Structure formats: C-alpha cells, structure tokens
C-alpha cells in the first residue's frame, strides 16, 4: 500500500519539482484512471493489468492537455500566483467530479473477476493478497523507470535543465511549454498506472480521488517538495504509519497517524525529509 501511495505521490512530486505547481486535481486524475480501467474491463473484458499501460498512455495525453489549456496560463499570472494555481486546479477538480457524476452516476462500481482479484499468496505462513503485491512490484518498476528516464535520457536532461533555468534553455532551442507539457503528461501517466492497479481492490465512485489526494500531498511534502526520491520514501513511511495506526486506533482514525507524522516531521524539519527548497 505504501508503494502505491508513493506511486500516486511521485506524479505530483514530478509536476511540483518541475514548475512549483501543486496540482489540486491530482486525486481526480486518479479517479479518471480508475474509471478508464473499469470501462476497459466492463466493455472489452481487458484485465486491469493489461489495461494499465493503455490507461497510463491516455492519462499522459490528458495531463499534457490540462497543462496546455489551464496550467500554462495559471503559471503566467503575475498577481497571487499561488492562489491562482490552487484555485484553477481545484476548479478543474470540481468540474471533473461533476462530469464523472453526470456520465457515470454516483454509483459505486468495482472491477470483478480480475486475474488477481481476491487471490492470496502464502509466504512462510503470512498470507499476502496478490493485487497488493503486484501493485508494489509495478510501483517499484515505475520508480526505476522514472529514475532512469530523468537521469539517463535527453528528455530527462531537458526536464532538469528547464527546471533549473527556464530562460536559459529557451536560448538553446528547447521549447519550455513542450517540456512542461511532457512533464505533466508523465506525472499524469504515473497516476494512471496507480489508478489502474488500485481499481482491482478499491470501489470506484466520483469522489474516490478526494480520499487519496490529501494523502498524496502529505506524502510529497513529507518527503520534501522537489524530490522524487522523497516521494518514494514518503510513500513507504505513510504506508507503514497507516498500518501501525490501524492496529492501535479504530479504523476510522487511521489517517490521523499519517497527519500527525507529517506535522512532527515538518515542525522539526520544515523542508520535509529530503527537500532541498
């Protein structure tokens, strides 16, 4: 579970690290990805595991379009830049939730009969649900891929350079908007991946994103804004804290532990664990 939190959060961290924008519609990106997986399953009987790459690709396009249509203008705002970003992406979140209600109705849906659904694996007497295990494996693979992508490819370098100095990269012929749009696409694709896997073991409804979005912000901030590794580590910590809290407190209070740990960490280290800014 912690690795999945990390995977949800890393997309947010990527976008933030790239251009200092917090995407308040991140949870709704996740919701869309879960619906996409559900419909691929319901209409074409495509298993969520096979659907994951398709959903990620679709979310990539969606993320890039959101950047070009909305965020591009939000970062240009001179007055109250922070609030404009918060409220333009928050407005988008409301619209997406409304659209989901309109087209998909507020009913709860779930993917039944996936290849992995309900199966468990026994490891030395401990029973582990298979979907969670596969989720963890996919998350680790995605982190590895992202790490390689950022550090070893031309585009990754362009991304880094644009982050450092958007003005200077324009001089060497890199189109800032293109790089940012690709960055948003990439961030959204990661959420898409997470959403596809999560649809195996969570109900899908229009507000589902909201319950994960806050945890994603906390995860990113815990690790430190601007650090992809921090989001990964933050995800693991959040997962562990949640599991521990669930043992001590009633289930309805399990998030309290996560929030308390966040507060403790930032009060001691106001930049998060691995944050540089």
């Amino acid at each position, binding site marked *: 579970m912690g690795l999945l939190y990390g995977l949800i959060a890393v997309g947010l961290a990527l976008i933030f690290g790239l251009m200092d924008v917090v995407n308040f519609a991140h949870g709704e990106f996740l919701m869309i990805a879960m619906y996409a997986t559900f419909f691929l399953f319901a209409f074409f009987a495509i298993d969520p595991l096979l659907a994951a790459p398709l959903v990620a690709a679709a979310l990539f396009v969606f993320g890039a379009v959101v950047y070009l249509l909305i965020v591009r203008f939000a970062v240009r705002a001179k007055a109250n830049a922070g609030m404009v970003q918060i409220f333009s992406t928050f407005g988008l979140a409301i619209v997406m939730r409304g659209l989901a209600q309109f087209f998909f109705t507020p009913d709860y849906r779930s993917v039944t009969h996936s290849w992995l659904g309900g199966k468990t694996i026994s490891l030395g007497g401990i029973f582990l649900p298979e979907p969670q295990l596969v989720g963890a494996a996919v998350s680790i693979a995605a982190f590895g891929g992202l790490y390689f992508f950022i550090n070893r490819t031309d585009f990754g370098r362009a991304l880094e350079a644009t982050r450092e100095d958007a003005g200077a990269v324009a001089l060497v012929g890199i189109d800032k908007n293109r790089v940012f749009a690709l960055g948003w696409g990439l961030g959204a694709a990661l959420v898409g991946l997470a959403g596809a896997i999560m649809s195996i073991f969570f109900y899908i409804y229009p507000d589902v994103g909201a319950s994960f979005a806050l945890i994603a912000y906390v995860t990113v901030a815990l690790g430190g804004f601007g650090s992809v590794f921090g989001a990964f580590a933050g995800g693991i910590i959040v997962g562990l804290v949640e599991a521990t809290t669930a043992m001590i407190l009633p289930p309805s209070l399990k998030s309290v532990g996560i929030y308390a740990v966040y507060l403790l960490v930032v009060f001691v280290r*106001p930049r998060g664990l691995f944050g540089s800014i």
Partner: protein
Amino acid sequence: MDSDFAQRRRRDLIVAACLAVIAALVPLFVKDVYVQNIMVLTLMYAALSQSWNILSGYCGQISLGHALYFGLGAYTTAILFTKFGVLPWFGMLGGGLISALIAMALGYPCFRLRGHYFVIATIVIAEIALLLIQNWDWAGAALGIDIPVRGDSWLKFQFTRSKLPYFYFALGLACVAWFVTWWLEDSKWGFWWRAVKDNPDAAESLGVVVFNSKMGAAAVSAFLTAVGGGFYAQFVSYIDPESVMGFQFSLLMALPAVVGGIGTLWGPMLGAVILIPLTELTRSFIGGSGRGVDLIVYGSLIVLISLARPQGLIGLFSPKRKEAVR
C-alpha cells in the same frame, strides 16, 4: 501613504455605511423566504471570507484549514446550548475566544513553515480535528448535533417564524468583519502584514516582528470565523462534522476572497455577492437532478475567473484602487 490614502479610507467608510443601510432596507421589499435565505448565506460568507482574508490575504499566510475555526465555533455554541443551556451569545463569544487561543497555539509551530508546507499543515490540522470529532460520541460523532427549538427570541437566538433576525445578525457580522479589516488596514499591524506578505526577510530586518504580527492576524481571523460558525449552527439548527469542518468548507470560505480580490477591503464582499447567489441558484435550478451539472458550471467558473483575473474581480471596478491597496 499620504492624503490620497486617507481620502480613500474616508470614502470607503462612507460607501460601506451607505451599502449597509441599503442592505438593511432590502428585506422590506423582498419577502420571498428562499431569496432571504440566500441573502443570509451571502452575508455570512462575506463575513467568513473577510475573516479568512485577514490572515491569508493581508498577511499572506494561506490557510486552507479555516473550517477548523468555523467548526469550533459551531460546536462550542451547539454543545453549550444543548448540553448546558448556555445562551448562544455566550457560545459564540466562547467559541471565538477558544478558536483565537487555538489559532495562536497552532501558529506557534506552524508559522515557521513556508509556502506549500504551511498550506498542507493547515489542511492536515483541520482534517485531524474533523476525524477526532467524527469519533467523539459525546459530541454526536458523525451524526452531529440537532439543536432543539426553545422558542423565538433574541435572547435564545432562535427564530422559527421569520428569517429576518438572522438576516440582520449576518449583516451586522459582515459589517463588523469589514470594519475590523478597514480599521486594521491603517494600523501598525496592517502595515506589518503587508510587509510580511511581500518579503518576510526584509520585513524582519526592518524591525517588523514577523512572528507576532502573524499571531495577531491568526487570532483575529480565527475569532471572527468562529463567531460565524456559532451563527451558522443556530441558523441551520443542525450541524455535523463533515458540513462544518470538512475541507470543502475551508475552500468555500476562501473562494469569495479569491474571486473578488485577495488582500483587498472589498474583494471578499464582492466575491460573496457574486458567488453565493450563483452557487445557490445553480444548485436549485440545475443541480436537482443530482447529476453534477451544477458542479460542472461552478467549477468552470472558478477556473475561468482565476485564470482571467488573477488579482480578483475588484480590479475591474477601479484599476487605481488596486495600486493603492497593494
């Protein structure tokens, strides 16, 4: 700040007085209960947004957890009234004082945080409070508190026959919030806040006591918000944790200021007058189907307004004023 500023402040006060008198006369002509209900909500949100504006707009400490103070006010008032029979007037004041104290206690560690870390801390604190109260059986847990009717009177602050008393109280609250902002704008604190917002480091080096001025803003802001919460509890006579302390409510409180103009005297008022009737009308006319069309319309408007007029709609009225305020 020179004579222009003093002149503008005098004019603001006169305009506000005129508007308040006009607003007070409106119910004489508008008898429709549905419309009166919207007017009460509009005034309440104007007051709340103005309170939020003091901390987040003037002082630049963006809080998305103000539902905490609203909820504290609502719960203090409701619990004192239902369990101990304490009059709502004392409940509102008590809730305000408790909120102001809590805001300062929370400000102590939180004001060291900057940017998104601060914003997330405010959200997270409000969320913890929400979860705790949802699990607190004595306070009604997730079901909330039903406030029983004990007769129509100003003393008990309950009116079943007419919405007018609520209207005049909300109007008074909005006037107080506006006046406090107006008064603080020209005080030592007002200048400090603007300095802290623009550049905390420079402000510090010029002798502004950054930390204390943030604390002051938090206390005033929380107090007014909690009084609004107490009023809301009496007005709707039923509260539950999600509706008074949820994250949505923090955003709803901030929106009028964002739409009207953050850190301006008139922004929250203008934003509330535009936004609240719009929200209520879209909800009742096209939201009835339960299919989310109202959300689509409302969300699109927020995106469009925040992208098209980052400084808020107030700039449309007089571009010069904006310069004077900033």
